[in-house]
């Protein structure tokens, strides 16, 4: 089975082992260690970590298309935000008549705008299964249409990057408009509960953190399975020599579309897990800057490794939390500095550093592997 193939790889087992151990450790330190003890992990920190994990899943999705397909998407924030909005719409409908205006159906911002009924695209979002389906389908559909047009016209390279950027920018402007019916620049917020669990309770927050961690593990395994399959090798072939792959009989644009849509759905899932943890979704998630930042995480962590994307997302976001706490003004300089340093000294990112050590160890154990044939 192609889906179980990753479990046979040592690196994947190691990654999953570390991730699951970390999830267990955080849970233990949160629940079993008394508050006030230096080892106690507060619920605030758990939610922060959960947010990082959802970013890590987004980074994995970006690495799948950038690292293995050679498509530098500067608009993956759009898929993330769409997934987030789908989740946000469900959470809004869950508020019911407990909003400020007490309307049993309409969210507060619609009452405020004097709307008398729900727009058609809000229908169905009171049902969790429908909303969760939309978390995957909305970004997937956008990626399908966008990708179909772009790949069919053989738009690649920097031009594709620019139009992905334009796509997320256009969506941001659209979602800023109150008439769109997504809460305008305030977005969706004031969430109460998810599937009946109070979003403000500690137990729900821990549960969301664990769910995000497991989603990251599953998303990672899915991406790894794709990458380790023949389809993954065809993707790399399309990345490096598109014309040659076409000459061998592969319909390059279909492979690009498939991987792009899978990646967009993963990004949407990441967004859906992000929203209940931060408690708000607004159009700033569509901002081009955010999408570019995601690409930076992947570049810092190491492209085309998947685990590098996770490392990059976690490290950069941790650094961001620390920096913006200590010296808020210096953060962008620090981010720029990190990027320059990694590009100059670690062209393959942090993962490249890990790989290099492994390869050195392998090289000393079996020398002249390359010389045998010359």
């Amino acid at each position, binding site marked *: 089975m*192609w889906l179980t193939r990753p479990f046979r790889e040592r690196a994947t087992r190691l990654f999953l082992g570390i991730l699951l151990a970390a999830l267990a450790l955080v849970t233990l330190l949160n629940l079993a260690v008394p508050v006030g003890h230096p080892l106690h992990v507060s619920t605030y920190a758990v939610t922060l970590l959960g947010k990082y994990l959802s970013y890590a899943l987004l980074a994995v999705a970006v690495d799948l298309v950038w690292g293995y397909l050679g498509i530098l998407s500067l608009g993956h924030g759009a898929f993330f935000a769409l997934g987030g909005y789908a989740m946000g719409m469900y959470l809004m409908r869950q508020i019911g008549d407990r909003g400020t205006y007490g309307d049993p159906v309409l969210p507060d911002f619609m009452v405020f705008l004097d709307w008398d009924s729900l727009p058609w695209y809000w229908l169905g979002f009171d049902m969790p299964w429908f909303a969760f389906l939309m978390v995957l389908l909305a970004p997937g559909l956008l990626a399908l249409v966008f990708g179909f047009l772009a790949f069919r016209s053989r738009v690649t390279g920097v031009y594709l990057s620019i139009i992905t950027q334009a796509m997320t920018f256009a969506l941001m402007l659209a979602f800023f408009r109150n008439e769109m019916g997504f809460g305008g620049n305030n977005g969706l917020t004031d969430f109460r509960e998810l599937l009946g669990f109070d979003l403000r309770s500690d137990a729900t927050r821990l549960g969301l953190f664990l769910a995000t961690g497991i989603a990251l593990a599953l998303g990672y395994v899915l991406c790894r399975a*794709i990458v380790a*399959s*023949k*389809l993954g*090798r*065809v993707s*790399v*072939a399309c*990345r*490096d*020599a598109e*014309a*040659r*792959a076409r000459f*061998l*009989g*592969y*319909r390059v644009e*279909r*492979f690009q579309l*498939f991987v792009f849509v899978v990646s967009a759905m993963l990004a949407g899932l990441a967004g859906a897990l992000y929203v209940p943890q931060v408690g708000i979704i607004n159009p700033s998630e569509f901002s081009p800057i955010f999408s570019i930042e995601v690409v930076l995480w992947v570049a810092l962590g190491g492209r085309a490794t998947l685990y590098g994307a996770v490392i990059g997302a976690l490290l950069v976001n941790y650094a961001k939390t620390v920096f913006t706490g200590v010296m808020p003004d210096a953060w962008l300089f620090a981010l720029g500095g990190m990027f320059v340093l990694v590009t100059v000294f670690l062209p393959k990112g942090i993962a490249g550093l890990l790989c290099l050590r492994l390869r050195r160890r392998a090289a000393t154990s079996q020398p002249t*592997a*390359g010389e*045998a*044939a*010359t």
Partner: protein
Amino acid sequence: MSFLQSLADRDRVFDFLAPAASPVDVRHGPILYLEDVSVSFDGFKAIDALNLTIDDGELRCIIGPNGAGKTTMMDIITGKTRPDTGSAWFGSRHDLLTMNEPEIASLGIGRKFQKPTVFEALTVFENLELAMAADKRILPTLTARLTGEVRDRIEEVLATIGLIELRHAPSGILSHGQKQWLEIGMLLMQRPRLLLVDEPVAGMTEQEMERTAELLTGLAGKGRQSVVVVEHDMGFVRSIARTVTVLHQGSVLAEGSMDRVASDPKVVEVYLGTEEEVD
């Protein structure tokens, strides 16, 4: 009723039972048959009443000065260029002039271009795997498994092109010559009946040339592949050729063994003479 009976006939060969490898009919000898082919571009006759016959399993070298029509001839065989007049047959059943490029390729005519292009990030083995004739749609590719049969086929081709030791090396580290062999291997994975090879030894070292000569002569054989090599390097042609065809101004000037062709005064005049002066 008779239909049911026909299904039960023991001597009946169903389509799915027939060997799928080659639908090409070579019972009458030639695998490639060009007759009276002409093509002109803006009044310039690139190919002028060309007649060429390649036998099944033959290794044929085609030489000729620049502009003699070698590349145009390859383009016609692979369906890239349509001739103005004449006919081109693959075996005695397939009219090449009615088919498009992918159809001709899937029928078993493989073409190797001058500049090698391999997937540098993938290993030699993986390059061959991708080149193999298989269902190339999305889901079959996603769920494709390396069966023993596939593995055997890849190992067989690895042995043929002499890259067994390097099977797990990324093809980006291969030398120029090794990349050329890998690309020939990628063609072989598609089990072609006719290989068109354009200037295989350009830029190769002496030793690489020798090994390429061995490879190409080893490939040609009845029931396996027929090979057509277009080459400028006369030393190389001399080392592999059994039959040489000299093209000049779009038609065949001379044909025969290398010695006979080389002593033909017409050939000496238009080609070998100038070639030696250049050397």
